[in-house]
């Protein structure tokens, strides 16, 4: 990095002070609708931040446009509220120029998957070390209630009075298909789970893609109640834990086993199957990750939450830095005078 930068920034990689949650709240009033799921995501992020021990000035939150994208204003870190869909591209440029920073992206299903879908898939395949939090509420909130690229087929909204005829994206499958190295899902109403996932995302080197089911209580209230509310949650959700069999149900009485490549639900109480028959999660297995992500819209199966995949692959910005460093070590730090005078030159007397 240029000496000009080196003169002003901190070179600590570990925070000198012990932060508290409060240290990460900005002085701005939070302007989301009362009851919005975004509050929970903000709270969990602010709760996890002190545990990361990263100097606060090294953290940047970048966003695009939408309700989710107001996020940076409420963090006391550096923040950049960009334009619609471009958060991942802005963050990529920042991370390439400044690999020393911890760069986070707050985006939504519209911002990240519709107008910003192209940047999202390319960021994932490059494996830029960004932490992407995708707030999925399956609706356009800020523009007051149109269907989004994750809204279910047939969704009746202001722009689809006869029902949407769009097939929804499954964000986790999209991220895996884009060669993502860390793909996870959590939900606004399970703070503990979300904290665990956010922390793992922060620790992952490479692009971390975290989809958070987030209730929009104004335009799409209850979209995820089946997965988030006590009465239905345990029968509708299976939590993925590395090295553990896929068990779910109110009394942990159901499990998932593989029939060929297809996951099926089996009973653990009718004597036909035991825990040994079940699929054991392995977050390093990219083939398995596809199968698990594919359970998402299958109504016969519980919805998977947790970390689908966490594998290591070279980071884009590291590879660029390596090329720069190697060019400097091989050719020496460039001399402008020499560069200007290079090529075929001749002298006029």
């Amino acid at each position, binding site marked *: 990095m240029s000496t000009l*930068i080196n003169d002003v920034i901190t070179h600590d990689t570990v925070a000198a002070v012990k932060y508290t949650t409060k240290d990460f709240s900005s002085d701005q009033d939070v302007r989301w609708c009362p009851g919005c799921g975004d509050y929970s995501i903000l709270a969990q992020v602010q709760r996890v931040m002190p545990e990361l021990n990263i100097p606060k*000035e090294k953290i940047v939150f970048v966003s695009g446009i939408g309700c989710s994208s107001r996020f940076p204003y409420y963090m006391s870190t550096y923040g950049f509220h960009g334009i619609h869909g471009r958060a991942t591209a802005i963050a*990529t440029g920042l991370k390439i120029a400044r690999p020393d920073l911890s760069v986070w992206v707050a985006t939504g299903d519209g911002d990240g998957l519709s107008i910003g879908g192209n940047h999202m898939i390319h960021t994932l395949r490059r494996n830029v070390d960004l932490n992407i939090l995708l707030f999925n509420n399956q609706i356009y909130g800020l523009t007051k209630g149109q269907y989004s690229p994750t809204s279910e087929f047939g969704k009746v909204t202001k722009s689809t009075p006869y029902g949407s005829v769009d097939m929804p994206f499954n964000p986790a499958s999209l991220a895996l298909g884009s060669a993502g190295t860390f793909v996870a899902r959590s939900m606004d109403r399970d703070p503990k789970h979300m904290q665990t996932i956010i922390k793992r995302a922060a620790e992952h080197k490479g692009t971390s893609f975290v989809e958070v089911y987030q209730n929009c209580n104004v335009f799409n209230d209850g979209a995820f109640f089946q997965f988030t509310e006590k009465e239905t949650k345990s029968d509708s959700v299976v939590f993925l834990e590395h090295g553990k069999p896929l068990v779910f149900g109110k009394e942990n009485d159901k499990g998932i086993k593989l029939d060929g490549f297809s996951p099926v639900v089996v009973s653990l109480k009718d004597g036909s199957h035991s825990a040994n028959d079940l699929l054991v999660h392995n977050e390093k297995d990219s083939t398995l990750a596809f199968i698990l992500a594919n359970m998402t819209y299958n109504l016969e199966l519980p919805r998977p939450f947790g970390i689908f995949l966490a594998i290591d692959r070279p980071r884009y910005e590291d590879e660029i830095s390596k090329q720069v460093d190697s060019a400097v070590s091989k050719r020496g730090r460039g001399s402008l005078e020499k560069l200007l005078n290079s090529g075929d030159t001749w002298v006029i007397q």
Partner: protein
Amino acid sequence: MEKQTRTLDEVTIRFAGDSGDGMQLTGGQFTNTSAAMGNDLSTLPDYPAEIRAPKDTTYGVSGFQIHFGATEINTPGDHCDVLVAMNAASLKVNLRSLIDGGIIIVNTDGFGDKNLKLAGYTQSPLADGSLSKYQVFQVDITKLTNLALADMNLSPKIVDKTKNFFALGMMYWIFNRTLDNTLQWISEKFEKKPEMIEANTRVMKAGWNYAETTDVFAVRYEVKPAPLTPGKYRNISGNQAAALGLVAAAEKANLDLFLGTYPITPASDILHELSNYKNFGVRTFQAEDEIAGITSAIGASFGGALAATTTSGPGVALKTEAMGLAVMVELPLVIVNVQRGGPSTGLPTKTEQADLLQAVYGRNGEAPIPVIAASTPSDCFNACFEASRIALKYMTPVMVLTDGYLGNGSEPWLVPSVKDLPEIAPKFRKEPEGYLPYKRDERTLSREWAIPGTPGLEHRIGGLEKQDGSGNINYEPENHDKMVKLRAAKVDRIADDIPAAAVEGDASGDLLVVGWGGTYGTLKTAVERKRKEGKKVSHLHLKHLHPLPKNVGDILKKFKHVLVPEINLGQLSKILRERYLVPTVGLNKVQGLPFRSVEIEQKIEEILGGKQ
């Protein structure tokens, strides 16, 4: 036979052939040799948009024009004096640019029945008398090349690839050029392929010897060195110069250069060039699209890099929203538009000047951006350097306009000394006490650059309207009005920090020819010719197009007429009329080609003759 030598002041040669015939290389070699021999020169490649168009068709013709002389050369030449045509199609396409009485050297092997048919000739122009007003030299270059290499056992494909060196060898003899430069180039280029060194060398010498010993050419020409300013020169294209300008600015500013870009004709060479300069800490990012190109650059700028994005017209259209963001967040950014023919995909490989209004006005909301135009290939260096200086000093995006003609064209460049380059001294805020993201410098009105990583300066910026000072989101009517006016005033104040516009010729007179961008050489040539005839004509060429230098209005008032030639429908004219209420006369031609000096001269005559 006794051969005569005639001395010429200037010559324009066009090398033309099929895209696979190596005409760009041949022209490039002739250029480097002529430059090394002290000629002033200007070149223009003319290649098809298709990478490998079907062989021998007119749309597969590739050309390279070089205008060199013993005097100052400002343009690649209106017409050519000599046309080298490697096949029938290249003759057909290029004949209209040859002067009456001009020289045509053809490779007769490229005029067989099949070649003629593909070129659309019903009978051979070499036989039907249609070329009678030219001096035609027919040489079977293919056969002679084969003869020269007969004992080498090379594949026919390789032999065919060397025939351009036969043409080059002949041209070197005709124009009294040394073979040394090209011989050295061949030996370096084919260092690991000794047989290619041998083959190319033999063929080039065979061409030279053929011209010298046979009776075909009775006259050779001498073009003496030009009286150039003493110093060290190199030949440089506009795109190379733009890349160097950005690197130089970053080095001067003590910043790392970041380029976020997406390949587009005719701007991609800037990316190619910069991707080689990694040992200067340059980071190039070939993004997934034009939008990611500019937004990644904005992200890098937020992080403290000198950030740039390079593109051409359609790419600028895609970057428009992000330019507005850069205006709003007030971060430095250089946007280089190597203009091409539009609208839409338009004419990707042809030149045009039709993006001026887009550059000055083309964004939503009141979003002023300084605009600087390069006037010659080497001036692309100055334009990019100056744009970086302004961007960093005023914390603003700056647009640089060049064009395909400048980007691909080349000229000798008097290499500047690093110590003579203007200072660029950006500062990052370090002191946390009293920091306000949108507090402004009283003189420049620019805000401070505070980068992530700096303790105590954590702040948030974005595209929503800012509160004056604090930078917090603010929708109050008075605040918005104030901020809109502040952003405009900041850009307007740059007029205090740029050189006054300088007239070439007298400061008053009958006619002022006003131009901008790549028409410089053509306008200068035309005006100089008319001045020699005693006409009261002067030339004003604008580099800073927004804001304009403060003295432009006064200059315009001192002339009875103002002529504004542009390769568009009158975009600078519109700006001048709106700004200064002067009646301008336009000369507007939009053919994807540069003006010819003679067209400007005719228009000058027309106005001064009172026909306007």
